[in-house]
């Protein structure tokens, strides 16, 4: 492996994501004053990034594979409620609540995956169906079981320490989960042999199957992963806030997709990186929270996000062209 030249850095899928993040950081450092970059101020965007990022990376994997999962928008609040009902309303042990909630997420993901690989229905439509089904089921079960739309939960200290507690004043413990999972996903996509399978499936599913890759099983697993990740975020929120209410998590759908695209994953599949998605998520969170530190109207954050998304899509195409054009290290003699 040669030295890291500027040229080789710029070809990487995360190059654009990194530049975007640097720009946004500089922007809010200037207009947001000292609080944006202060230790306490940074917690607000790190918290948003962590809750989003845990779901965004598996969504990014699905997009690299050429699929999409929008049912996570219902899975986050459903898992919140499920955790609250099992370990709060029924007072069962925390681990039972965690296991059943993750299990529920796994089943929804498995259903998504099975329908997508067994039928020719696009995953957008399949998961649109499960999005509504899970949302409806959550409301129905909450009313039937608890007769309310809000439950409280008092988690023991160890459970709060692991799943939902503020450290150093305002840093949620889920940030540690996010960093740990990101490290595992980096290994998975970029260093393990299975990462190669994901790129191959996204590049050409038919050829990947003919090369002996179990494409269907792999795709189903990706849906299980995204759904379980959403369930994990939902249950952590219940433990953190000691309560859950029937709500909508629709913003997760758009916010994860935006983070993934800003992170350099191509909408056509087959190309992307975990670090890029990580940067994309942080960028989104900075814009989303940074606006509160400025004198600007907070509605402008949507405008900024929208413009950034468009720029990212255009840049992604450019970077892809550059990556394709690369023809090996230039000999300097």
């Amino acid at each position, binding site marked *: 492996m040669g030295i890291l030249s500027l040229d080789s850095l710029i070809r990487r899928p995360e190059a654009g994501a990194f530049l975007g993040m640097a720009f946004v950081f500089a922007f809010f450092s200037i207009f947001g004053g000292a609080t944006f970059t202060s230790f306490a101020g940074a917690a607000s965007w790190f918290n948003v990034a962590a809750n989003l990022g845990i779901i965004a990376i598996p969504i990014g994997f699905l997009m690299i594979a050429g699929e999409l999962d929008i049912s996570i928008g219902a899975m986050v609040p459903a898992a919140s409620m499920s955790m609250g009902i099992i370990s709060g309303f029924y007072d069962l042990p925390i681990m039972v609540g965690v296991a059943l909630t993750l299990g529920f997420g796994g089943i929804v993901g498995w259903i998504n995956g099975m329908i997508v690989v067994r039928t020719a229905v696009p995953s957008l439509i399949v998961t649109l169906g499960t999005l509504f089904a899970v949302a409806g089921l959550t409301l129905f079960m909450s009313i039937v079981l608890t007769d309310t739309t809000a439950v409280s939960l008092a988690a023991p200290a160890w459970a709060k320490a692991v799943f939902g507690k503020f450290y150093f004043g305002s840093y949620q413990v889920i940030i540690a989960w996010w960093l740990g999972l990101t490290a595992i996903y980096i*290994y998975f996509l970029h260093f393990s042999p299975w990462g190669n399978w994901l790129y*191959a499936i996204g590049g050409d599913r038919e050829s990947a199957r*003919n*090369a002996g*890759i179990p494409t269907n099983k792999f795709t189903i697993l990706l849906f299980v992963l995204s759904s379980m990740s959403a369930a994990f975020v939902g249950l952590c929120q219940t433990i953190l806030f000691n309560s859950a209410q029937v709500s909508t998590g629709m913003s997760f759908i758009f916010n994860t997709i935006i983070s993934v695209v800003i992170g350099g994953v191509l909408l056509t599949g087959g190309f992307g990186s975990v670090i890029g998605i990580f940067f994309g998520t942080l960028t989104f969170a900075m814009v989303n929270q940074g606006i509160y530190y400025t004198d600007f109207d907070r509605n402008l954050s949507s405008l900024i996000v929208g413009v950034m998304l468009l720029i990212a899509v255009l840049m992604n195409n450019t970077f892809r062209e550059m*990556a*394709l*054009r*690369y023809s090996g290290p230039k000999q300097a003699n």
Partner: protein
Amino acid sequence: MKDKTPVLELQDIDMSFGPIDVLHEISLKVQEGEVLCLLGDNGAGKSTLIKILCGVYKPIRGAILMDGSQVEFNRPRDAADRGIATVHQFGGTFPLMSIGRSFFVGVEPTKKWGPFTFFDRKKANEIAVKAIQDFGITRIDDGNRLIGGLSGGERQSLAIARAVHFGARVLILDEPTAALGVKQAAHVLRIVNEAKRRGLAVVFITHQVLHAMAVGDHFAVLIRGGIAADFRKGDKTREEITDLMAGGETTEDLEIEFAIRDGPVEGRPHSAAP
């Protein structure tokens, strides 16, 4: 001509899709170190025949033999396991993957580090680059290049080198030169010759007679799902083959047609005998 057992043989293959008969009574053989050219107009059934050879379709009648004994392909994997490799028109199918990564899709070289299994990128790149350089494509020296950045001819060559590296015995090339310019096509034809020299049995599908004649040992012309002619190198001229493919309509007929349509043309380049 000594009569060796053919590596691959088709006996009276029939194929239909519902009521549509696409192939009837196709019998063909191909031996080690031999190129069989399958010629035919669009819609003649060439692609369908290949899909039978590589296990995508099962014929409704007839037998497939390898080394003289009957085999059955229920899925593409079965054919691949027996050493039948197919290279499609656009060669590398993973444009956004690197040469090293795509070369080893499904059979990634790994190394262990503690409990972790790592994709051995360095080894993958080295082997892939060496395999393609051994085929005479010395311009490719970096396994990190993306497939989509290679020229059409290079992609075809890489796909062929890959098949050979993984021990293919039968190489099926579906119109490998159709989308290429003259130079690129010559490139691929050289690679086909090299594969043949290494003892592979090659089935080369094309509708470009010149390309077929450049590498073929044995020719079969497919018309509307049947074999209209089966002959060896040197038995027929280029015009005769072209006429056969057109299904009786001779090149002279076509020239007259052109002449009527376009008016008399001075110095229209006549196709000289090869």
